[in-house]
């Protein structure tokens, strides 16, 4: 694997200002029409921790929310259209049901003011970077956000920024 792809399948822990400043490049893949990179390293997944500051639910379609970590606000979309989307029609119904149940559970946990850890794919909507959510954990520890900042800083310095192809 070349250096550009070394973090490609990792959920990179990034601060919001870093997520929002990722470089977007049109790609030739039909499944991923835009590729995202940070200092020349390609990324596809990210993890963020912050406070939920907006919430817009379209039942049976999606939940759109914003997560604010104090350095920026990242838009997140949690799809809830598992029974109507052609994307899921190809998968086995029991699997789809499990995925749909998890997504509905996450949607119920996303409340204004809650601190949450969100993982997902990095995507783009109307030119802005967003996260297409795959996992949500509501943080009970009031120090979780502080510890996330420190993780992000440490990982950037000791891992993400080390040996970057285009520093």
């Amino acid at each position, binding site marked *: 694997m070349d250096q550009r792809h070394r973090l490609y399948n990792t959920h990179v822990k990034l601060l919001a200002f870093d997520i929002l400043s990722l470089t977007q490049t049109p790609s030739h893949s039909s499944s991923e029409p835009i590729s995202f990179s940070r200092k020349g390293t390609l990324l596809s997944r990210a993890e963020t921790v912050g*406070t939920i500051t907006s919430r817009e639910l379209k039942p049976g379609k999606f939940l759109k929310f914003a997560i604010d970590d104090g350095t920026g606000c990242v838009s997140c979309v949690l799809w809830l259209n598992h029974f109507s989307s052609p994307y899921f029609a190809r998968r086995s119904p029991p699997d789809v049901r499990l995925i749909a149940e998890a997504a509905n559970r996450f949607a119920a946990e996303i409340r204004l003011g809650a601190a949450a850890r969100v993982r997902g794919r990095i995507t783009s909507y109307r030119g802005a970077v967003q996260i297409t959510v795959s996992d949500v954990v509501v943080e009970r520890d009031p*120090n979780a956000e502080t510890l996330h900042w420190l993780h992000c800083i440490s990982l950037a310095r000791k891992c993400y920024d080390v040996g970057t192809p285009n520093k």
Partner: protein
Amino acid sequence: MASSAIKSGALVSLEEIHPSSPFFKQGASLRVTGKLQEYSVETAIAIVIDGNANLKINTQHLRDLSFRVGSVYQFIGELLIQPDNEAILQARVGRNVDGIDLNLYHQSLQLLRQFQADHLSTP
């Protein structure tokens, strides 16, 4: 940040909110943390303190949050500077953060600011 309709609340300590501070601006989006000193049910105004600094918080838009004097809360909202130069944070969201390590929080905030400044100078 222009892509997002909701503004991020800049992380500040209460002692940084004074008239000569860069954060002391009409409508500035801030995130503050402090111990609840007073709360009025009639006005929904809370006063939080941290060390020697305090700040009034208008909590009228917050639901599902119970206020206990002595507990620690975190609020995100916009600063309203009144004609007498007194600031009130118009809270959009708030939560109880009892158990937060405020020393770690303030020290980490300094590291975070330094990291962000370094990142912006060498993108």
